[in-house]
Structures are given as structure tokens and as C-alpha cells.
């Protein structure tokens, strides 16, 4: 399929839009009518055709605009991309993984021609045609991690593994749900997760770490996480909280359907072959409430999940103050009918809204 890339912004006039195609393939994160933390991992080996799970690195209609937004963030704050000195090899691993995956999964958009260490990379949507020497940094305009992640949607944390622990030692983080690479750089797994409520007591992180340490080459994994964002902002960083935090107070009953977005992260985990580091891509998908409720099952379910979510989680995810407004809006789309299990829209089998 040829993708039509949107001309759109994630700031100022917020012209970001999801097409019908993008709405139907949105990674809705709730498989039942309630939500609680779980490690919820599964293998990342494809998925239904056309879904965001199908390819190793999903490319969609927002690609070109997202990369433009990343460039703006980096121009204002170069510390959003960092790599400690021992992580350069992991950067090359990341570059190789993304180039090989994209050229195989999207041959009409990306090409990789390798002649020994002499590599030619063609990125048609971004108009790039570059020949370089693999493992020779002097042949790239910037480090390998920065080079390739300026051309790949989503954030990328690169975790060094040593002494049975993971360390946040490199990353490209410009589309984050309120955490900072510059703050977390060098931290271990428990340190950077310290702010998360409830999960520590539940033993979630101990189990998650054990799982992640054992992710093996050739067997990537994935999970979903979610939060809420007012306006389609990719960059909801602590560094810029003064710019976007205040926007949370602009919701009204009239604008909530278009302004309030569900923000879903498709998190994947790859063991990198040369460095033995763990690559943690965090791909952000945004959808406006008014688009979610066009899928009757999702409208019903989102209302129930938000209504019944424990207060600590609504606070941590930053929407406790707006929850009453969200529920007023979403309750219009919940007729009390049961929902089918699983995350898929089930448009052919789920009844339309009965009110």
C-alpha cells in the first residue's frame, strides 16, 4: 500500500488529523472494560495485516510530519538525544536494525544496499540518499543513533545491560509522556521507574526487569501503555511543561471531543546483536476522543475504563482534574451494552450506539 503522508503540525495550530484508515488501525489499549497495570508482554512477530503490529517499525501517514516535529525539538534542545560513550556500538546496532527492517518491510519507501561495510541508504519519503561506512562515525553527519532516529517515528531508549541490570545510557526522546532523558541518563531500571505509583508494591518492576533481561536476539517483545494528552502534542516533556501543562485547563464541553486525545505507546523490545544492549522503541499514537467514539465498542469501553480507574493512576497519568469533563463527554457514547473481548474494533459485529 502506498501511504499518503499528511501535512500537519503537532504544535501551534495543531493541524494533526487521523484519516479513517488511521482511526481503524489505532492501537486501542484496553482489552476489557477495566484497566490495571500488568507486564502484558507478548512477542513482537507481526500481527494482523494493516495493523500497527504488522511491521517491526510501523510507518504511517504521520511519518514525515513527525520527523519534522522531532527536528524542531532537537534544534531547541539538543540534549533530547544523548549517548554515553560506551553506547556507540548500540547506536550502530539500532541503525542496522531499523534500516534492514524498513527496507525489507517497506521496499517502496526505503532501500538499503550493502557492499561489505559500504552502505547506501535511501529514504524516499524524506528525500535522503546517503552512502556511508558502517561502524565509521566520520561518514555520518551525526552519531548513528541520532542519524537513524531522526528518520524513525517514536522515541528510542537504548539500555545497557550489565550486572543483571538495565541502564538508561542512550536515547532519542522527543515524544515522551512527561519524562526526561537528560534527567534519567545513566539511571538504572528501578531508579527511572521510581515515580510510578502502585506498581512497585505490586512487584511489577521486579518481574518486568527479569523479563527484559532475558529478551533474546531474534525474539523481540511488545506491550502497550497509555495516557491522556490535551491537544495533539508529541512533545509533552518535563522541559516544556510550562508550555503544555497549562493547556490541560483549556477543556470545555464544546471542545473536549476534538482537543482531548488518548495517547497510546506501542513499546517494543529488541536485543541488539553486537552490543548486547536492549533497544526500547516507544511509539506514540494519538487519537481525538471524537474519533475514538466513531468505533462504538471503543466509545463504550473507554467510558467504563476512565470511570473506574483508581485515583492514583488518574493522578499519575495527569488527568484527575479533567476526569469529570471526560466522563460527561464519554458517557454519551456508553449505552450500557456489553462489549466483545479483545482490543479490535469489531465494527461488523458490535451494535451501533443505542441512544
Amino acid at each position, binding site marked *: 500500500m502506498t501511504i499518503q503522508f499528511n501535512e500537519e503540525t503537532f504544535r501551534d495550530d495543531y493541524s494533526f488529523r487521523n484519516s479513517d484508515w488511521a482511526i481503524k488501525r489505532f492501537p486501542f489499549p484496553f482489552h476489557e472494560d477495566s484497566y490495571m497495570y500488568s507486564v502484558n508482554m507478548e512477542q513482537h512477530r507481526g500481527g494482523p495485516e494493516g495493523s500497527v503490529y504488522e511491521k517491526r517499525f510501523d510507518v504511517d501517514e504521520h511519518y514525515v510530519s513527525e520527523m519534522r516535529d522531532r527536528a524542531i525539538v532537537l534544534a531547541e534542545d539538543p540534549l533530547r538525544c544523548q549517548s554515553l560513550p560506551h553506547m556507540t556500538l548500540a547506536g550502530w546496532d539500532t541503525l542496522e536494525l531499523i534500516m534492514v527492517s524498513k527496507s525489507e518491510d517497506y521496499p517502496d519507501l526505503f532501500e538499503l544496499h550493502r557492499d561489505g561495510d559500504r552502505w547506501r541508504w535511501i529514504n524516499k519519503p524524506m528525500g535522503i540518499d546517503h552512502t556511508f561506512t558502517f561502524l565509521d562515525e566520520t561518514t555520518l553527519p551525526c552519531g548513528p543513533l541520532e542519524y537513524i532516529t531522526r528518520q524513525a517515528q517514536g522515541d528510542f531508549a537504548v539500555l545497557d*545491560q550489565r550486572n543483571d541490570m538495565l541502564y538508561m545510557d542512550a536515547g532519542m526522546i522527543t515524544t515522551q509522556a512527561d519524562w526526561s532523558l537528560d534527567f534519567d541518563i545513566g539511571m538504572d531500571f528501578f531508579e527511572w521507574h521510581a515515580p510510578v505509583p502502585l506498581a512497585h508494591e505490586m512487584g511489577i518492576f521486579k518481574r518486568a526487569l527479569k523479563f527484559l533481561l532475558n529478551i533474546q536476539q531474534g525474539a523481540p517483545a511488545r506491550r502497550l501503555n497509555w495516557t491522556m494528552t490535551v491537544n495533539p502534542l508529541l512533545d509533552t516533556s518535563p522541559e516544556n511543561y510550562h508550555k503544555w501543562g497549562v493547556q490541560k485547563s483549556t477543556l470545555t464541553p464544546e471542545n473536549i471531543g476534538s482537543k482531548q486525545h488518548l495517547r497510546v505507546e506501542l513499546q517494543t523490545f529488541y536485543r541488539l*546483536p*553486537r*552490543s*548486547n544492549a536492549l533497544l526500547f522503541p516507544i511509539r506514540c499514537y494519538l487519537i481525538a476522543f471524537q474519533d475514538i467514539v466513531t468505533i462504538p465498542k471503543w466509545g463504550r469501553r473507554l467510558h467504563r475504563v476512565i470511570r473506574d480507574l483508581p485515583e492514583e493512576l488518574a493522578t499519575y497519568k495527569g488527568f484527575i482534574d479533567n476526569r469529570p469533563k471526560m466522563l460527561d463527554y464519554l458517557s454519551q457514547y456508553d449505552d450500557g451494552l456489553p462489549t466483545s473481548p479483545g482490543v479490535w474494533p469489531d465494527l461488523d459485529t458490535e451494535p451501533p450506539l443505542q441512544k
Partner: protein
Amino acid sequence: MSAAPQKAKAGAEKIEVEVSAIVPLNDLVTRFEFTRRDGQPFPPFSAGAHTVVEMNDDGRTRLNPYSLMSDPADPSKYAISVRRDDEGRGGSLFMHQKVKVGDPMTISYPVNLFPLDLRGRKHVFLAGGIGITPFMAMIAHLERMGGAWELHYACRSEALGTYADELTSRHPNKVHVYYDDKKQAIALEDLLDGQPLGTHVYVCGPQGMIQWVHKTAAAHGWPDENVHSEEFLAPQPGKPFEVRLCKSDITIQVGEHESLLEAIERCGVEAPFLCRGGACGQCETDVVEADGEFIHRDHWLDDDEHASGKKIMPCVSRFVGKTLVLDR
């Protein structure tokens, strides 16, 4: 995403290979080289990684881990070097006696439990005997990346100094070989004494050597995290015993020459594993009930866990007694 939680998969991903060369190196050690049957390049691997080789020995499946010792930058082949163990359970004898060039075999994707610490300013390798193998890949890697290293390699005799000549001639100033039969020994204390800050030490060899290095380094004030080791244990034979697997609802017998993990697999129960040598932790299993004595042999559980009787690593550990019930 599916709603169902996922079971840990048993073992790493597999690669179908063909034996492309068998190179006897001395009386005890032979190198086996593999190419891929699908003609694709091998995945790159990180130095220190091992592969688990599947052997079909007259209908009995053996799975043994071996360090990858080929150059990680060469995707055309993987190589392992196998020391013949006449007293062992038969995996190395199978490799030495039954495997022929051209045979199809199955090996696992690389798994690394002994990686280089890439922060290291310098890497000091201490090898004993067949423990040289992971360092072959590490040396190739560091040579390519321009990293600082030195090797101290203890062997029984010149005749059994696997790769000693090759290493010495290639890297005369970095390789130091010590022969037992000439009463040469690694002067470990002196060696640790003169190292620059940021040096990491890696040891691979017999258990006694590993303990000696850890103890000596600790006594000289080295931080634990700068001293790395790898030792694969081979499961040891023992008295047969009976185990109840309560989730699978079957009772199985573990024979004298098979491990508990192998017995579980033989009975058709899928159990997670990776290294099969007591190091990786994947096969950790909860004990539901036990009346008897555990023979813990793994490096994974700590002393308290061993003493608790609540967990067992079925790849290398055994049990003697009346009743053992596992959550599997």
C-alpha cells in the same frame, strides 16, 4: 494485543545449519564450523555469546551450550570448539565421534551471558583450558574496534594449548601463555596490581580458577562489577528420583544420566530454558512440596534461596528423597 498472558518460550530461536568443517586442534579439542542451510548470513553476535547445539543421538536429544568463538564480524559462519569429555554424559563424545561434515544440525540464536562491559578502558582476559573460546570472539571484536586488551592463558601443556600458537603469533605482546607441565602459573596478584582505572577482568575456566580470581580480586579491592566470569555446568549424573509435575498432572522418573529438565522435556512438558548450564535463570521452577534433600548445583539462586527449598533449577540440580512436587 492478545489479552492472554504469554508463557515463556522454551529456548532461544533456532537456526538450521550444516556442518561445513571439522578441524581437530589437538588430542582433546576439535573446532566445528557451521553454515546456514537457507544460505542467509548469520545474525551478528556479541562477543561472549554462546549457542545451544541440538544433537540427535540415536533418538535422544542432547542440548549443549558452547561459546561462539568465530569472529563476530564474519556473518558467513559460526564456529565452536568442543573439548572431548570422556567422563561426561556424552554430548562432547557425540560431537567428536558421530558428527560429520555435511550433517544438518540445529543451533540456537546467540545468547550472551558473558558480555564485554563496553565501558571498560581495558579488558584483561584470564582463560583456563577450553575456557579460551569466548575470548577468541572478544579478541576479534576488540581488535576491530581498537579496544585495549591482554590475555593470560593457562593450559596443561604445549600439546593441549588450543589456539595458543595462533594467538601468540598474531598478538605477541598481548598474549601470555602458561603451561602447567612447565610449572608456569598466572601471577594474578601482580597482574591485578598494575592495571589502570576502568580495567575489567574476565575469567573463563574451571570452577577453582574462577573462584580464585574473584577472591583474589576482591582481596585487592577490585569492585565485583569489574570482575566477570562464565562457567557452564554440565549436569551431573545422580541417583534416579521421582517428581510430580502438578500443573501438568503427571509423575515422571528422572534417570541416572539425565537432568531433571531433560526428563521433564522427555515426558512432553514444555519448560522454559536458555543456557542449560545453571547460569541464565530461565528454567527456575517453584517447589510446591518436598520431603528430601536438594542437590543444588546452579549459579543462579543465592544461598538463601537454595536453603529455602522453594526453588530449583532443573537444568543442573537434582533431588534425593521421598517426595518432590514442582509447579510445572
